[in-house]
């Protein structure tokens, strides 16, 4: 890509963040870190939406800001999600006394 500031670079950035978030989710031991990873994934998606809405505004004439609106929705949903996830983790912690998700394997078998 010729220019650094371009759609592709934003998309690539978002892709990288997505992959990193995925790796965090799949690899980390602690439940709270997994929440961080999930937040990263959400953010990557939001960046995608915003980049598209800003770099290609001619798509939708009166609705140029659709991508940003969607990004706002993403933020809201991510926040709600983080809240619910933390609630679950806290109650799990009460039962298992740990946040190590390897030890939370009652679904085995």
């Amino acid at each position, binding site marked *: 890509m010729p220019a650094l500031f371009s759609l592709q670079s934003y998309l690539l950035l978002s892709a990288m963040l997505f992959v990193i978030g995925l*790796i965090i989710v799949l690899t*980390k031991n602690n439940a709270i870190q997994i929440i961080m990873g999930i937040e990263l994934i959400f953010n990557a998606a939001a960046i995608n939406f915003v980049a598209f809405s800003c770099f290609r505004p001619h798509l939708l004439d009166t609705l*140029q800001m659709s991508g940003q609106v969607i990004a706002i929705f993403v933020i809201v949903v991510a926040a709600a999600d983080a809240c619910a996830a933390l609630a679950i983790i806290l109650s799990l912690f009460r039962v298992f006394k740990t946040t190590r998700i390897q030890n939370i394997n009652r679904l085995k078998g």
Partner: protein
Amino acid sequence: MFSEEIRTMVFFGAGMMTLISAVLIIFFNNLLHSAVALFFTLVGIAILYILLGADFLGISQVLVYAGGVLVLIIFGIFLTTPHVDELGSARKSIATWITIGFGFLLFRLLAKMILQMPWVTKIPQSRPTINSIGNLFLSKYLLPFELISVVLLFVLIGSILIIRKDLRR
């Protein structure tokens, strides 16, 4: 105008900060350190938003994400870990490396897709967005807007329900 170069530099700087912080989340074993890295990631993303001209979005990103979600996460960390030191480590098994490998594969795939597409783009303009966003919220995206509030309500109540101690016993 010099804004081109500055924009490119700022983009580069912010992008680097975001990426490096994201990677650091993985590598920090200390939970709090990773939370801080997350913070920097979020801030970097906010800068990127503003660079695109999405001013409202960038501010709300900082407000909600960095100021809300992150704080929530830090609360969670404090509530659940006796020692914040080693609990954030990754699995030390071959599965981790395989996962990372797959991650690379995925990224490569996505990158290929991205780079192959012939995008037709325009330079983003910076103008205040909040009017348009407000308009959109109340016209096209009215239903999702209302629904989102309902969702938030549900999540609030639900989380409290999950978390409360059963007082009856």
